[in-house]
């Protein structure tokens, strides 16, 4: 295993400032830490903050893409593209609206979709979709904190959690997920519906 991946095993600590004499380690929660790093990139073009984000997210984005069947080389390249987009679009990140991991997930997902569509040869004039502003009524508290979402996920019954995981980590429509799990499609759909309802309640309670 390479050093960068090993670094990500200690996410509690973030190194601030340049490494060396002036560097100091600040104790923060992981969530605020990652969001603060993106804000530091947006506000100051902070390269050290970017390096920390890269070390945390690039190996996970690569793992996510490989789970979806992307080759190791293509996943490496898309992870690079994702982190480059993190650098360029950092000003568009709002820590009050979304967790850092949610934002990075959405970027990686969109880049993967764009790549798949380019390979499919789009009709003339087709380009990647622009990001659209959220509607003001699309409010759900506590989504800016990934630990709460992770805690809520851990509290789901095992078969619901599995159905949700398959929806995100399987490049297949739900009908094929149902085949893989040897379940009727209706059961998979209802597990996902129950899981999302449960998550909503858990997160609203937490808020």
């Amino acid at each position, binding site marked *: 295993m390479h050093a960068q991946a090993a670094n990500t095993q200690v996410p509690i600590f973030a190194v601030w400032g340049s490494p060396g004499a002036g560097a100091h380690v600040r104790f923060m929660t992981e969530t605020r830490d990652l969001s603060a790093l993106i804000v530091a990139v947006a506000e100051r073009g902070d390269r050290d903050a970017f*390096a920390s984000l890269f070390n945390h997210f690039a190996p996970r984005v690569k793992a996510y893409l490989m789970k979806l069947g992307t080759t*190791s080389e293509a996943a490496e390249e898309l992870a690079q593209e994702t982190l480059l987009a993190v650098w360029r679009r950092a000003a568009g990140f709002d820590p009050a609206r979304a967790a850092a991991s949610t934002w990075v997930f959405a970027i990686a997902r969109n880049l993967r979709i764009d790549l798949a569509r380019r390979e499919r040869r789009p009709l003339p*004039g087709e380009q990647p979709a622009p990001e659209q502003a959220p509607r003001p009524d699309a409010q759900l508290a506590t989504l800016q904190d990934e630990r709460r979402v992770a805690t809520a996920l851990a509290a789901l019954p095992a078969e619901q959690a599995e159905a949700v995981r398959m929806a995100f980590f399987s490049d297949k429509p*739900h009908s094929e997920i149902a085949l893989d799990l040897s379940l009727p499609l209706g059961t998979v759909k209802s597990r996902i519906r129950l899981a999302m*309802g449960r*998550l909503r309640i858990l*997160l609203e309670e937490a808020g």
Partner: protein
Amino acid sequence: MSPSHHPSEHHLVEHAAGGLAPGHDLVIAAHVTTCGTCQAEVRLGEAVGGALLDALPPEAMAKDALARALARIERPAPPATVASRGPPADWIGFSSPAVDAAWRRRRWAAPGVWVAPVIRGPGRAHTYLLRVAAGMAVPYHRHKGRELVTVLKGAYEDRGDIHQPGDFAENDDVVEHRPTVTRDGECVCLISADAPLVALDWVGKLFQPFVRI
């Protein structure tokens, strides 16, 4: 005004996960831009995606990966692609380059009807814009597989329900219907179907070879 017909939960989760076929994804995205309730659901889905991403065992990057990234961020960003002109102002506020480009390629298909292909495939799947004039009915038909629809402009009546701008509909292979545009004005829909529809009356059979939907 918020839409009153929504996609099912699993469609929204699949949309958040990025697992829908491109055409189906566009139809869901069109609805979601107009609907705060569904947008909150998609954001919950994305938060789940983020939490799952964060919990994944990292996959080691190449040794020089960080050095490459640090070098790349020093290069100037390419100029943003020219924004497409966007859809007509009286459509729901959904902008997609594929849909905007399709609209400019629309072609006459029958009296009162134009069609604009957005995405072809995979297989016999087909995503298109369909415009039908006020008061007109689509010939009686059924579907092979699923058909997803979001209203972009105007309204139509289908089996007692009125579908208005932003409303979503899913029709499966047991539905046989003759959607009829209301008398208030033309109706434009974004439609993604697994297969071409099956005409059930002579009007449809007559026009289908030309309309190609």
